[in-house]
């Protein structure tokens, strides 16, 4: 995935209408008309959104007969999600170990300090 594709992906996701279109397509294929239905915007405006999503590799438009349904392709999102997830897992593992290690150090310190003598 090149840097251009990444920028296209992020700007595609930056718009709430486009995110809603992706949510709808996550439920299954839809025609342009079906996608436009919930929104109070013009058909050309919807088409503009679809072009942005296509450029980002997030939707594919089938060329079946006249009705050309749109389909979601989640691969770009999965690749980015995997990238975030790897580092999240690395740090989660490290921070869990750090947490246990800090508790061990503090326990050792408490034991070294010993019980309080009467008169302290």
């Amino acid at each position, binding site marked *: *995935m090149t840097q251009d594709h990444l920028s296209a992906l992020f700007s595609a996701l930056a718009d709430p209408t486009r995110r809603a279109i992706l949510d709808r397509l996550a439920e299954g294929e839809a025609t342009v008309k079906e996608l436009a239905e919930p929104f109070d915007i013009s058909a050309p405006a919807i088409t503009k959104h679809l072009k942005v999503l296509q450029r980002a590799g997030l939707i594919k438009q089938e060329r079946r007969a006249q009705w050309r349904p749109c389909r979601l392709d989640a691969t770009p999102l999965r690749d980015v999600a995997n990238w975030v997830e790897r580092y*999240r897992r690395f740090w989660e593992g490290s*921070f869990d*170990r750090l947490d246990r290690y800090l508790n061990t150090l503090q326990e050792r310190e408490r034991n070294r300090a010993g019980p309080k003598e009467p008169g302290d």
Partner: protein
Amino acid sequence: MTAGFERQAPVGDAVEASLPSDREIVVSRRFNAPRELVWAAWTHPEHIGNWWGPDGFTTTTEKMELRPGGEWRFVMHAPNGMNFQNYVRYSEVVEPERLVYLHGEDEERIDFEVTVTFVERDGATEVTLRQVDETPEARDRAIEEGGAIEGGKQTLDRLAGYLETMRS
């Protein structure tokens, strides 16, 4: 599609990752320990080997020079026997509140810049780590690697499933 890409990571016991921009990850965690101790765990060779890396990994420090321009060279030993050379060069060392460093395989291959902040609140320490891919190429490499790793894991999972059906 959620606002997860825009939301700042809340601090808690779990590690949450957020994505403030297309080359940046933020992770945060609270620790029940004073800041000086958490700082020491990050900055002393005898401490850092006891927690750095996921479960099963051990870390050998070859050198750690805790100053701007100083280097931390270390090897991570994976549970499967593989060794990973690591290189860190510190750009900022502000005890006990901030570390900024570059991290990669060696001084020629820097993958990201990391900023770690340590904030004490009510006797606990919030550690926030911000990791920025050093170059678009480093970012693409990491994403492709991640895709390859996930792809590899899925292949292995499918193979494992197939072997199960063969057994029965």
